[in-house]
């Protein structure tokens, strides 16, 4: 072993250091591909909304579902203690659903398991999420952020109907 030099890097240290760099770099590259290649992205900055005047905002005057193009649906949704409006969403199988959502009071969550819909509803912010619903069935919409003593009752559902 070399001694007395100001610094020493042994081969077995290097044999660990280099893969330790390669591993996270490789994973980062993989997630960049899925985010920008496959378009699976997280929510961004969609602008502020006055949390005390949500009902006056163009998006949230009438919470609900509308078809904006063939196979493309827009959901305008609000979260409030302890419910979602609308609480039930119906779309045909194979639809892409664009969620625009906000909170009227506390921090809530908008979570549809296994469908790329996982976003926080913050009072003062407009959230966005987008997902495809291919398989007919009933899926829960869950508030996954603690919002008070009846938090566990805050849920809705998406009903994906088979195409006739």
């Amino acid at each position, binding site marked *: 072993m070399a001694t007395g030099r100001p610094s020493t890097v*042994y081969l077995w240290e290097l044999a*660990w250091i280099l893969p330790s760099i390669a591993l996270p770099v490789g994973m980062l590259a993989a997630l960049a591909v899925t985010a920008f290649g496959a378009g699976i992205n997280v929510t*961004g900055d969609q602008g502020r909304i006055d949390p005390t005047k949500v009902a006056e905002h163009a998006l949230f005057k009438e919470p609900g579902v509308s078809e904006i193009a063939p196979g493309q649906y827009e959901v305008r949704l609000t979260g409030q203690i302890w419910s979602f409006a609308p609480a039930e969403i119906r779309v045909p199988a194979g639809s892409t659903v664009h969620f625009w959502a906000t909170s009227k009071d506390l921090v809530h969550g908008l979570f549809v398991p*296994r469908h790329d819909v*996982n976003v926080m509803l913050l009072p*003062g912010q407009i959230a966005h999420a987008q997902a495809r619903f291919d398989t007919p069935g009933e899926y829960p919409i869950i508030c*996954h952020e*603690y919002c008070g003593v009846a938090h*566990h009752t805050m849920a809705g559902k998406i009903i994906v109907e088979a195409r006739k």
Partner: protein
Amino acid sequence: MTRVEERLAAANVIVALVALFGGVVTGLFQALEYAGVEIYPSLAPVIHSHYHSVTMHGVLNVLVFTTFFICGFLPFIFSRSLQAPLASPHLGWVTFWLMAAGLVLAAIPLVGNAATVMFTFYPPLKAHWAFYVGLTLVVVGTWLVTLNLVLTWRAWRARNPGQRTPLAAFMSLVTFVMWTLASLGLAAEMLVLVIPWSIGLVSGTDALLARTLFWFTGHPIVYFWLLPAYISWYTLVPRQAGGKLFSDPMARTSFVLFLVLSTPIGIHHQYTDPGIHQGWKLLHALLTFAVFFPSLLTFFNVTASLETAGRARGATGWLNWFTKLPWGDPSLAAQVLAMVLFAFGGIGGLINASFNVNMVVHNTAYIVGHLHLTVGTAVALTFMGISYWLVPHLAGRALWSRGLALAQVWLWFGGMLIFSPTLHELGLRGMPRRTAIGHISYMQPQWKTLLPLVGIGGAILFLSALLFFLNMVLTATVARRAPQPVPEFADTVSGPDHAPAFVDRWQPWLATAIILIVIAYGPTLVRLAVTTPLTTPGLRVW
């Protein structure tokens, strides 16, 4: 017990362990609730709801137990490492009593169900002001610990010019300096937003600004919990195992990287928050992957150190050095098992950090499973392992029962092997966290089958914790009186003279840390601070 460092350590550790007791009792309630046991009605006068229980569990375990244990253990080990007394014992006691006063102030509304806001206390949830003021006093106390360590180190430097700072002292100092820098976000949230609002000086608040300041501190706080465990793994465990620390230069380098990289990554907790542009989220993902590097260095270095121990004890094969470790020592067994589970916690953490992949796990039971491997095992089981020599030393009595301690350690490991993977899997199946799962209206069949395992794992963990407290109490009161040694610091295979001198220089690393924080947080925080009207009213809804 004569030295003031020991009395200070004892005072802090007593508070820490009392808090941990409250934390594990409330933990049991939640595990049983998940498993479908109607527990809360019978606890009604004391525990007001599942959420009251979850809040106490979080605050007592991750805020009180960790902070007080660290403020007891690190100054003690720091002073031993420098072979110098603390610069100001007086300041040490002022700090302890300030933190204790803060704790009492926060505990009154916490226990009284006036602060059922989780340990993350996201506004507009509005707790009693005493909760926020009390927690802030605890944070201020930790800054005073930093001050005492810095003063002690400077005095040591003046007496030992040109000498390399011993590894344990260097690491302890890095931990507290990193924390002090990182805690500025929480301090700003408390002093500017939350406290004026909770006492009625301002009428509104803002959720996103508060969350961004909270997570500025909320991620590095996990390194504040973890680095003291690393310090034990690096500087004490190799010798407890019968070997040497493999590489002092790599150990120093990893801590310098934690100083630089711990803070500018907090937005990885906010990938799903609207109001922050994806570009900033991606930058924080990149830097989070960078901080994985010093963790991997630690993993290699500590494992290689254990290998030197196994070989010194006669192992010759590829892997039997692991079985040759002195498993009969509960302090060592606890810490090695903590390391084993932490490896999985680290891998899971990478998934959480992975930007869009985070959408699969964010705010699900997966996160709970992850946190119980990291702070709930890597940190908690290591601190229990440290307690197995520290408490006997401080009490001047032998450990009451080594066999009971070994049983406790393996029960924790076994209980966690059931508890944590079950919660990870439930999260992948879409079950939310922090929710009274026993009472949800949207129960899914694929969750229901696994929920009993949460109860069983949690009950085993609770039993393990009871054995730990029994042993600690009996050690401190009735065990045989005899002076108990503190583990000596480990020798090294590759020593500090192999590390470049610039590793120990503070200015360049602190400057890099601050520059990275300004780049990663500056634009977002300035934009939010300038453009956010504080108009959201607070609510008490529990």
